């Protein structure tokens, strides 16, 4: 479950990666974990964003000029979760656990990825 401060951190990270290329990287049925890769088109720098216990995904598998935003979301059975959207790309993902940036838990994520 994500706290408001976590959503704020994720949005700060997404803002920093606005304009990147986004690619579906992996889905694992265990923990319904979905990974999207963000890649800087000029430098090739990349990072994975992992969505745990996601229960809905829609959108293209690859798009450029991404502009992701994270919102608080409540599942039909009342669990607090996240919703991440890219309106222009038509991308949407919802889940009830957490969004993890790179290989780090949000609580320990390097601020270098966020600031």
């Amino acid at each position, binding site marked *: 479950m994500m706290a408001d401060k976590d959503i704020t951190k994720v949005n700060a990270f997404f803002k920093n990666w606005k304009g990147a290329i986004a690619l579906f990287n992996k889905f694992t049925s265990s923990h319904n974990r979905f990974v999207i*890769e963000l*890649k800087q088109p000029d430098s*090739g720098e*990349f*990072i*994975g964003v992992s969505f745990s216990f996601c229960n809905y995904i829609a959108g293209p598998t690859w798009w450029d000029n991404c502009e992701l935003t994270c919102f608080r979301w409540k599942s039909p059975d009342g669990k607090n979760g996240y919703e991440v959207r890219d309106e222009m790309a038509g991308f949407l993902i919802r889940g009830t656990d957490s969004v993890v*940036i790179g*290989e780090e838990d949000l609580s320990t994520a390097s601020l270098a990825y966020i600031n």
Partner: protein
Amino acid sequence: MIAYGIEKWTTAETLLRVNEVGGSYSSDFDMAIGLARHHLTGSPTQLENFAKHVNAKTYGDIYRNWWPGTMERLEANILRAMNNAKYLKINLDGLIKAVNEFPSLLQKGSRGIEPVEVIRGVERGNITNWEVWKIYTTFSLKPKAVYYFNSRPVSIPQ
């Protein structure tokens, strides 16, 4: 990169012609090998475009689909296609940043077709690295290899 340029490419051409005369291939197609996606733009058409550029067939062209169900079948299919191809045209773009990094590509490829590496939270497969390593280390395949980097044929470090 220029150090591995035209002179050695000519040598490679010569080797290929010798191999051709020897008749060590059994089919009349060339096989294109390389990353499917462009390493910077993410475009999934890099290998298709390369194949058109060098007049070769991709795995998908040869087998009509890209996934045979298991990694074991994929490996067997790739090897069969490599053995049957006349030339193996290898696009190094995205696999290395300069031709002198070729040994590190081989080192990764030697780990096998299946290993997956997680880098900054992103999973990276090893199929193309393994393909290049397999070609380079297989006596019957090595002479059929033609390497390309930045859309130009290059010779690789021996």
